[in-house]
């Protein structure tokens, strides 16, 4: 499912949902879904990429950044990225950024 999602959406951007805010507690990044008052504690790897998910870069661009930072092949970086992003999208903590037609 994640791979199919990635192929279809490699050019899209994702950003923090407007109903979330975040903080660091005990060295751990937490994200609050304000609507449900649900507090999500992110895994260290997902927490590292969370600040980058501000909608300014596409998933493709992020994968390249991640590949450079971790010295891994781009394909591997994409799989890692998907593994973090898809659950966050499903939890409503991220939203897909829809750009207006050019």
């Amino acid at each position, binding site marked *: 499912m994640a791979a199919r999602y990635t192929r279809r959406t490699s050019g899209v951007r994702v950003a923090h949902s407007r109903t979330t805010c975040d903080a660091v507690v*005990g060295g751990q990044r937490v994200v609050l879904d304000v609507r449900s008052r649900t*507090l999500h*504690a992110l895994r260290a790897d997902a927490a590292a990429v969370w600040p980058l998910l501000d909608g300014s870069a596409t998933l493709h661009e992020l994968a390249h950044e991640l590949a450079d930072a971790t010295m891994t092949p781009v394909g591997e970086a994409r799989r890692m990225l998907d593994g973090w992003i898809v659950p966050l999208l499903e939890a409503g903590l991220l939203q897909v950024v829809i750009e207006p037609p050019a």
Partner: protein
Amino acid sequence: MTAVHAALGYRFTVTCTDQRLQAHVDQMLAGLAVTDDHGGHDHRIDRYTVDTREPGPFALRLDGEVLVSSASPADPLAHLLHQVNLRAVEHSDHLTLLHAAAACAPAGPVVFPAAMESGKSTLVTALALRGWPYVTDEILALRSSGEVVPYPRAISLDPGSWTMFPDLRPAPDPGVAPLLPNQWQVSVPSAGGRVADSPAGPASVVFPSYTPGQHSRLEPITPLAGLHRLLGTTFRLERHPQRDLSVLAALVDARPCYLLAVGELGGACDLLEEEFGKAETHAPAGVTVSFGHDDQTRLGGRRFRQSGALVTADEVGGALVVHRARRT
């Protein structure tokens, strides 16, 4: 001149048609009185009138508009207290607000967040009587810097707590009694306690729960668990979620959090004193202590001995009987 009161950022006056009730309400609200009526966050001052003239209907008015009209003469004052709390929250958008009680240990304020009917007021009353300076029994306000803003309203004790504090039973003028809600409003200074002057940031966060029939226990929890619980007690989180989350995250990151199972009230207070220290001893100003047969008594949780014309206080320890305390 009508006194101006401040409930956090909310300023108000209260005028009663019954002068005896006015004196009672003035004493009840003394902890919220302000001398500078222009120093609040919101300069507006709401003016309440508690109208208990016979034959009724009895009313609470706000700036002349009827807020509540009832056949019960106790309803207007009960509604006033409720209104003040609600509007304190509405008018304090600049503060992070928790549904919590608080009192000061030697290291600083200990915050007790909990839902209604969890025993917050009961616990903070017991601590105030042990000499912990009182901060609030209902709404804990934090600045963005993390400092506590006191809200030292009279403590509201429900009937279920009355047997634990028989000495606090109010003795209003007989003509006023029918006008009072079915709740004791305990003025901490009148009970021999102290109100916190300008407390710093909280020293700790303790989540109390009432567990009758069990031993009281105090157990540490992780900062993350503490934050999760704090968010459940935050007023209007949707208004400034990032600010409030940052304030609360900084709090639990810097200060220890605990769960407190309150089985027996005295035991729970003992645990808190073991963990956070006992309050400094002092003789409350303006209070005369009447001594029992052994020339010593206990007031506000502290033990006093008679020494010539002076009243001196010392920590002797052990359980003592309260003989009598009379306000001058």
